[in-house]
């Protein structure tokens, strides 16, 4: 959740301005930011160029459940939290004599993911059996792609937001070694009371993409940012739903430490992390643990499981090589184009990827890069933002703050998704329109927003009218209020007359206080200038 962390920390500096409204929100931010200091503590010494300093090296192995209605090699349905063993075909239960039949949708998902991550798509890839005895692996082996995976040699570009205001966008790359198709295992439930193990095979045979990321990252925040970017890409592609808590995206990290320029240290694995936020923390904890051990003169122990080191691989004899074709022209005669996996066709169907979308948002709307991150990070927020723009003449640069501060702040505070927002894009647009046309002031607009949030269905105009929040532009009334303020603040008036024009703002604030923020600021300024000249 580092990009979440990115989004959130960005939220933080925006929220400082409005923290009065959202006391809880700053709590959330503090919790999210806990990963950063550790990462910084590592990087800073490096910056001071002390080459003896130990630094972390992080590689990732990511299992992404393919978003497909059926399993990788059988026709069983794929569904989360179905009754145990209700989605199990004869093949999934490894009944003797059953054979795997490859699901084309899963191949297309892997190819599409590979293309989105700039991989080379292998025209021919192979399936292998990886053997180990485990109760939730009914065949005694997993079908995977060890020798020749479907996609290799790609790059994931992710961004870190750095600097005091987290407004500096640092782009980083991580090399994707390969993407392989493989089967998921079932689930074991250990019943300690009756000392028995219950097996649920619903998940057995669900298609996975295993993505191997090279150890190009140096701390939890980087790994978390990379995973978050991957999550966004997979969700944009629709190849994986990417929900970590439901196990759709599972991340194992290989962590080691070394001195830059020296060979990599002994690595350990950080496994079973169910959120991006904890991933960052767990990795940083492990880096600190290893550094601690080495600094005390100890050695890091490799804790790889025994079956991994010896387990045998064998080519899967029941599946011919998987062939994908470059384009329709390269299809051999007799092959049905609808049945074949054609790279060109998948390429053409690639949706807008998050990085492209961010660039487009910055260019089209003139918003800041960090705002584009916030928009893209939140499912549905870009669409929300663009829907608001459709319905208002207000400049995008003025709308963005409303979406990323007011709206997102309120959503986060109540743990809501964008689609659950009580204020719809047209409703927000109407509010902004009231402000834009001078019917209400900007501070009143914020009050109206809050009232709209609490009473969904009411329009901005209704609320403005009900609470008499409309802009006061009655010149006589404003003259009298201004006169009262000028009369009771002779020192300020004196200062202004002596040339300190800034003090005028203080008087303006006092007038707004009198009018509960409803006074037309342009008019007030004009009147005050007259009265203090």
């Amino acid at each position, binding site marked *: 959740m580092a990009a979440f962390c990115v989004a959130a920390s960005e939220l933080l500096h925006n929220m400082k301005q409005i923290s009065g409204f959202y006391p809880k929100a700053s709590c959330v931010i503090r919790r999210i930011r806990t990963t950063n200091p550790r990462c910084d503590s590592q990087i800073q010494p490096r910056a001071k160029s002390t080459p003896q300093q130990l630094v972390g090296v992080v590689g990732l192995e990511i299992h992404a459940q393919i978003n497909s209605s059926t399993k990788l090699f059988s026709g069983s349905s794929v569904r989360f939290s179905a009754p145990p063993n209700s989605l199990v075909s*004869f093949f999934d*239960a*490894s*009944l*003797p*004599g*059953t*054979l*795997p*039949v*490859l699901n084309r949708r899963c191949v297309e998902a892997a190819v599409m993911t590979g293309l989105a991550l700039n991989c080379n798509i292998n025209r021919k890839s192979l399936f292998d*059996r990886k*053997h180990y*005895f485990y*109760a939730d692996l*009914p*065949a*005694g*082996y997993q079908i995977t792609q060890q020798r020749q995976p479907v996609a290799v040699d790609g790059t994931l570009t992710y961004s870190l937001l750095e600097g005091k205001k987290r407004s500096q966008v640092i782009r980083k790359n991580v090399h994707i070694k390969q993407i392989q198709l493989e089967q998921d295992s079932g689930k074991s439930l250990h019943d300690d009371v009756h000392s028995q*193990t219950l*097996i649920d095979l619903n998940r057995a045979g669900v298609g996975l993409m295993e993505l191997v990321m090279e150890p190009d990252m140096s701390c939890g925040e980087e790994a978390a940012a990379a995973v978050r970017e991957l999550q966004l890409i997979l969700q944009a592609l629709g190849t994986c739903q990417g929900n970590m808590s439901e196990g759709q995206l599972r991340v194992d990290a290989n962590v080691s430490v070394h001195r830059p320029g020296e060979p990599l240290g002994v690595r350990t694995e950080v496994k079973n992390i169910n959120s991006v936020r904890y991933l960052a923390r767990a990795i940083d904890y492990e880096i600190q643990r290893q550094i601690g051990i080495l600094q005390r003169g100890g050695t890091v122990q490799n804790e790889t499981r025994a079956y991994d*080191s*010896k*387990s*045998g*691989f*064998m080519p899967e*004899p*029941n*599946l*011919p090589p998987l062939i994908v074709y470059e384009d329709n022209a390269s299809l051999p005669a007799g092959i049905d184009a609808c049945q074949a996996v054609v790279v060109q066709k998948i390429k053409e169907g690639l949706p807008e990827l998050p990085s492209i979308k961010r660039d487009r948002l910055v260019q089209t709307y003139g918003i800041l890069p960090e705002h584009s991150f916030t928009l893209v990070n939140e499912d549905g927020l870009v669409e929300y933002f663009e829907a608001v723009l459709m319905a208002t003449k207000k400049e995008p640069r003025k709308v963005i703050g409303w979406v990323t501060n007011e709206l997102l702040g309120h959503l986060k505070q109540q743990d809501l998704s964008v689609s659950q927002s009580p204020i719809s894009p047209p409703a927000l647009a109407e509010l902004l329109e009231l402000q834009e046309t001078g019917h209400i002031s900007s501070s009143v607009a914020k009050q109206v927003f809050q009232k709209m949030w609490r009473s969904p269905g009411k329009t901005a105009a209704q609320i403005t009218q009900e609470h008499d929040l409309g802009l006061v532009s009655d010149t006589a009334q404003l003259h009298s209020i201004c006169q009262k303020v000028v009369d009771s603040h002779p020192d300020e008036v004196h200062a202004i007359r002596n040339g300190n024009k800034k003090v005028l703002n203080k008087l303006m604030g006092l007038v707004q206080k009198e009018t509960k923020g409803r006074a037309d600021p342009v008019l007030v300024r004009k009147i005050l200038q007259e009265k203090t000249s």
Partner: protein
Amino acid sequence: MLGLFFLGVSLALREGRISPTELCKKCLNRIKKTQHLNAYITVTEESALKQAQQSEVRLLKGPLDGIPFAVKDNFCTKNIKTTCASKMLKDYTPPYNATVVQKLLDQGAVLMGKANLDEFAMGAGCTDGAFGPVKNPWSYAAPYREQTGAMLESDWAITGGSSGGSAAAVASLTSYLALGSDTGGSTRNPGALCGVVALKPTYGLLSRHGLIPLVNSMDVPGIMARSVNDAAIVLGILQGLDVRDSTTVPAPSPLTELPQDFDVKNICVGIPKEYHAPGLSEETLAQWSRVADLFERAGAQVKQVSLPHTQYSIVCYHVLCHAEVASNMARFDGLEYGHRSQIDSSTEVMYASTRHEGFNDVVRGRILSGNYFLLKQNYQHYFVKAQKVRRLIADDFRNVFGSGVDVLLTPTTLSDAACYQDFTQEDNRTRSAQEDVFTQPANMAGLPAVSVPTALSRRGLPIGLQLIGPALHDKKLLSVAQWIEQRVGFPSISDWDYSRERSAHIH
């Protein structure tokens, strides 16, 4: 009637000379009379009679309608026990039919029962199954009894294996055809020793879905029949793509009956010199020469060819076979199905005792060596090397067929069937290495091969010869096989057996 080819009996059925139910009863009756052969693990009397009745009602649609058949007990049969002759699956009842079984049932063929085999098809004698060995029907017929002077019940000969039950079922006239499986010769070997036609089709031409695997990359459902033409018709029905088996290929042509007047004049018959193997019996060699001469006299070109890597085939086969066995057998852990040990103090202990109790020594031995070959440190040295040798063996065949040879003519086995007492002097591994020597290279290369009985030996036991053809040339292969069949005059067991049946014999 029982001694007929199935095409003959099919005609009799359609002409009303016998009804499917009568035929079924006759076969069931004969199964009872030949129970001592131990050819069947399960006899499906009740369902067979029901199917026969349905056949009658249907008024016999196709050539297979109402025809009794047997299935090796490593093909899954819905609601009928499928044991693989192993304690592990002693009480296992599959919920589905193997594709090849289903196709025969769809044609109206009547399933008589599940035929005996070596445990998980690992063997060359049909002597290593959990339900006991199968006895060669010919060792109860007059020629053997008279010529060997065999008096004792214990003097019987083996059927060969591993599809010994299927071969015995066809040879003893209890079924008109049978499904076997062929991984290293398991259909052709017992076919030759029991005097029946035994076809191992091109790899991928028949679906393996529902065949409990031995070596997935070599397993092929085999067809056993009383005549080459019968085998051809069954092949025509069984062949072709199956969506449930990704290794199947489309049939090159629809195959019906074979041409009765096939001309061998333009055929080139290769005689591989490496098949003059040590241990080849004089009589089998004589049959080999006899048939080669038949070809030559008929105007075919007969020439010696070389398959130089043949000698490495058996050892290479063993490495690949054991590795796949180790992998395929991993699923038998007692959890989802099959035998589960009472000893279950932990999951691991339960696995170990389940597998120890469920598998015989042969299976356990192959799993052990297979896992050894698959160990990370051994993989390159054994498995990968064996795969390379396999490629060389396949290339040998490709080169020969590329040089204009149409079929290869070889012996199927070294000699006629051994007496059980003699055969069991050596262990399963030694016997498998000896017995598969001529048959197994065709599996390595995925080629079609057929064993045709040619004569009885001096001991009164069948001798068969093998033809091997290029991939997907199964029909041509069978045409050549039929040409041999038409000329060698192999006798029917019913010539000596129950006199009541003799009148129906076609020869």
